């Protein structure tokens, strides 16, 4: 091969092979990414098609009938709302404050490192282990019994890492010089957090709280033994059917029951339940994503 200046810029066999490999690699990775999304779309559309005969507003508002083989899901739906609201009331304040501590107060020392490890571990503990903990601690040791309180406390501890992580991330995204400017005019640490840091990160914190809602609405294992029951008689459309020291039905638990325990369910009912659960969770998550996108586009720094 002669390296005259003209030939330097001509494609050689080597370059062609190189480019071919590049194209092959790129298309393989593209296929892999698509392969991840296609099942999602197929599954969701299959569920919706199967559920279609039962899906209506009536399905949401009606109570289960004929040994849960027909009818709606109202008691389960309202039960899930109870559980989510109560667990949110517990985990949101603790989680947000823990996030504030980790990002604003904690120095980089061994205690902080241990807290970090603890948060990571709390997020990684299997849900069934949380259920065992809830049973041992809340149901028996604290004598709450199998109740909405026990179940929501279990859910709250389980979803705490979600809120802590997103609060930290939101606080960390507020620039350091905002804080420095505020300290320089004589504000204390808490005043700075209250007036400068929190208003600038509230959207991110809200996103975390919303994600907590979606996570706790979908969990089954932690509530199975701590407060959710297969069936509870409830009036149609009743908004306050449960007491906090009693048990309740839950959407996720109801789906599990319909799918595995109840014989002769009309086919579309479990599918419709799955669609309602999936729809609720995805809707909540989509809200979080939209809020996050809005904040990002409005960011002034």
């Amino acid at each position, binding site marked *: 091969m002669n390296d005259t200046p003209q030939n330097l810029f001509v494609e050689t066999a080597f370059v062609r092979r190189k480019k071919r490999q590049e194209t092959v690699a790129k298309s393989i990775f593209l296929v892999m990414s698509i392969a991840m999304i296609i099942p*999602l779309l197929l599954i969701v559309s299959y569920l919706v098609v199967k559920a279609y005969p039962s899906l209506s507003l009536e399905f949401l508002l009606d109570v289960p009938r004929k040994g849960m083989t027909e009818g709606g899901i109202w008691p389960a739906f309202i039960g899930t709302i109870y559980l989510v609201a109560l667990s949110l009331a517990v985990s949101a304040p603790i989680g947000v404050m823990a996030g504030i501590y980790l990002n604003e107060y904690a120095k980089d020392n061994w205690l902080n490192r241990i807290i970090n490890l603890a948060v990571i571990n709390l997020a990684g503990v299997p849900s069934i282990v949380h259920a065992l903990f809830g049973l041992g601690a809340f149901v028996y040791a604290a004598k709450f019994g199998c109740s909405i309180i026990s179940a929501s406390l279990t859910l709250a501890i389980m979803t705490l890492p979600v809120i802590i992580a997103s609060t930290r991330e939101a606080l960390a995204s507020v620039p350091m010089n905002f804080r420095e400017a505020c300290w320089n005019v004589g504000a204390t640490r808490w005043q700075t957090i209250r007036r400068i840091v929190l208003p600038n990160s509230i959207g991110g914190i809200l996103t975390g709280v919303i994600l907590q809602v979606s996570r706790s*609405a979908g969990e089954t294992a932690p509530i199975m033994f701590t407060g959710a029951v297969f069936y509870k008689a409830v009036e149609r459309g009743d908004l306050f059917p449960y007491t906090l020291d009693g048990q309740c039905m839950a959407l996720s638990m109801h789906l599990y029951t319909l799918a595995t325990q109840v014989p002769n369910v009309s086919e579309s009912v479990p599918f419709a339940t799955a669609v309602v659960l999936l729809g609720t969770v995805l809707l909540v998550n989509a809200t979080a994503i939209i809020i996050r996108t809005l904040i990002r586009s409005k960011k002034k720094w």
Partner: protein
Amino acid sequence: MNQGETKKLQSRPLWSIYGEKALEILIKVSGISAIIFVFAIFFFIFREAFPVLSSPNFHLKEFLFSSEWYPTSAVNVRYGTFALTVGTFSVTALAMVIAVPFGIGAAIFISEFCGKRLKETLKITIELLAAIPSVVWGFIGLTIMSKLITQFTGAPVGVNVLNGGIILALMSLPIIVSIGEDALKAVPDTYREASLALGATRWQMIRRVLLPAAKNGLLAAVLLGIGRAVGETMAVLMATGHAVHIPHGLLDSVRTLTANIAAELGEAPERSEHYQVLFLTGVLLFCITFVINITADFVIRGIKRKQ
């Protein structure tokens, strides 16, 4: 400084100062709460499990290494969880065989090959994929996947290792992709530029520069995926069938550690030996995921220190 001057400096009322102090203490307590909860989890589970350790029917060696699980037998009580452990790891291993190549591949595509819009779309899709509740995955395994499996493989039952593995693969994909993408993003751009300036194609750059540089982060992504798969309960409870034995093939039904607790805890009388052994299984699970998570954290931390 005398008394008078201190008074002048305090422009705020006392309650506000003490209120702030109290609030800061509350914040600190919340910060430490994560540690308290992790210890509380271990304590309360172990407390329920503890009495069984001294029972004549229980032997630690048998618990860990025997595959004979007859917890309710009247004459021949055996508490061997080995078959369950093998069940957990067979399903997890299959899930990783499927999820790791796809997850890393997708992470590479998202981080290196695609445009900004497509990247945002893919990331949102992954987030939604991660949000699907495990009981819905289990339901999908029980209804859709099991039908497909009996059709294509001719297996007598559709709920088996293969089914659970596919479902777990889909479930742990999002975590592998998002952590893997973070790992690739953490590689400094100068590495990419240097390599491209030498005339490498992107694929050569990825293979020779990016993957070696990001290998720890990718390892952590896989570890966290394994952690997720090992701890998953409802999906495997519904999708793997209920046979407590060591599987011989992909189409055998198995039962995992998590599913075993979920399936039997409801039937075990409170404070009975069976109930305590189930809690001990919980301790075992807690320890397994603890080790996996700590390892993943050290691997990630190792990278951060190097940079």
